[in-house]
């Protein structure tokens, strides 16, 4: 034991460079310690932020490339009178809504009250596109629940719906007086959505609904 102690003491004295370099290594490590924790923590925080934002988003809502562009050209036979047509020209000259619906769509039933309220109270012209539906059922639906539409076009084949980029019902488009698509709402229409999304956009184009 004694021999060991006497041996190591002169050893350290002989090699001071070793002690110094060890000290340096220690110091530089403690200098980067903060970074070693902060960088991964920051990256982790970033990842969490991305996930939190992503979780809050509804992946079924796909932004429409039609917004800001002219509404597509179409001509459809009317539900109330197949001899007459409803087409793009009917949308011009006023701000209007184009609502894609079907009697097979539960969301359409859900929003029907809202559409009736809007047609009555806001005065905006609401047009309907009856999408891949049974026409008899559609007529009965409007008779029993009330008809908020100025005109309804029948899209039996779904060809017009493709041109409008429709991928589910209900969808509601806001059309400006010049025929430009101003906004597209996917999901049932509510008065809340009307106030927060539609009214400001109607005001922006300077048209009274």
């Amino acid at each position: 034991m004694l021999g060991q102690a006497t041996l190591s003491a002169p050893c350290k004295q002989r090699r001071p460079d070793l002690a110094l370099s060890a000290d340096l290594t220690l110091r530089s490590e403690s200098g980067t310690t903060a970074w070693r924790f902060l960088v991964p923590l920051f990256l982790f925080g970033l990842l969490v932020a991305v996930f939190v934002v992503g979780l809050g988003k509804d992946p079924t809502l796909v932004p429409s490339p039609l917004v800001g562009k002219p509404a597509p050209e179409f001509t459809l036979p009317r539900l109330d009178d197949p001899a007459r047509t409803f087409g793009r020209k009917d949308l011009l000259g006023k701000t209007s809504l184009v609502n894609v619906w079907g009697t097979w769509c539960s969301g359409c039933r859900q929003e029907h009250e809202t559409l009736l309220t809007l047609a009555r109270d806001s005065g905006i012209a609401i047009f309907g596109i009856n999408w891949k539906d049974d026409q008899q059922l559609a007529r009965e639906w409007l008779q029993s629940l009330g008809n908020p539409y100025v005109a309804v076009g029948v899209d039996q084949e779904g060809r017009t719906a493709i041109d409008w980029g429709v991928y589910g019902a209900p969808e509601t488009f806001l059309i400006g007086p010049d025929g430009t698509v101003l906004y597209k709402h996917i999901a049932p229409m509510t008065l809340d959505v009307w106030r927060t999304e539609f009214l400001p956009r109607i005001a922006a184009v300077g048209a009274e609904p």
Partner: protein
Amino acid sequence: MGVLCLIILALGPRPSVAMDADPKLSDPVLQETYERLTHEVRCLVCQNQTIADSSAPLAADLRSEIRKMLAAGSSETEVKTFLLDRYGDYVLYKPRFRASTAMLWLAPLLLLLVGGIALRRIIQRRADLPVPADDDEGSPPAAPSRS
């Protein structure tokens, strides 16, 4: 062995369930284009299926529309533009490179770059560290002889 089998199964060609009951296009080249296209187009109703795999009515409508367009002489690019104009970039499983999709395409490269730089720095720092001289310190003395 079981794991290997699973890997082979996962890598192998998967049987695709064709929802497409329509007759084939008369031109085999067009039919091939049609099949390739329908496997690249997302069904927006069911999002994680192509329109070739989806039984949604909209997928059937889009398939018939693509078939009509090809039969009428539209090119593959024209069909894609047709779909993009209506449904946006999300409709293609391989979206175009644009400002809005740049992150999607560049993120893997950026991450690889960042990882590579980090790895390089770590390796360099390790290489620069003095080799610990532990030849006679730290290690327990080998059976001290008491002679």
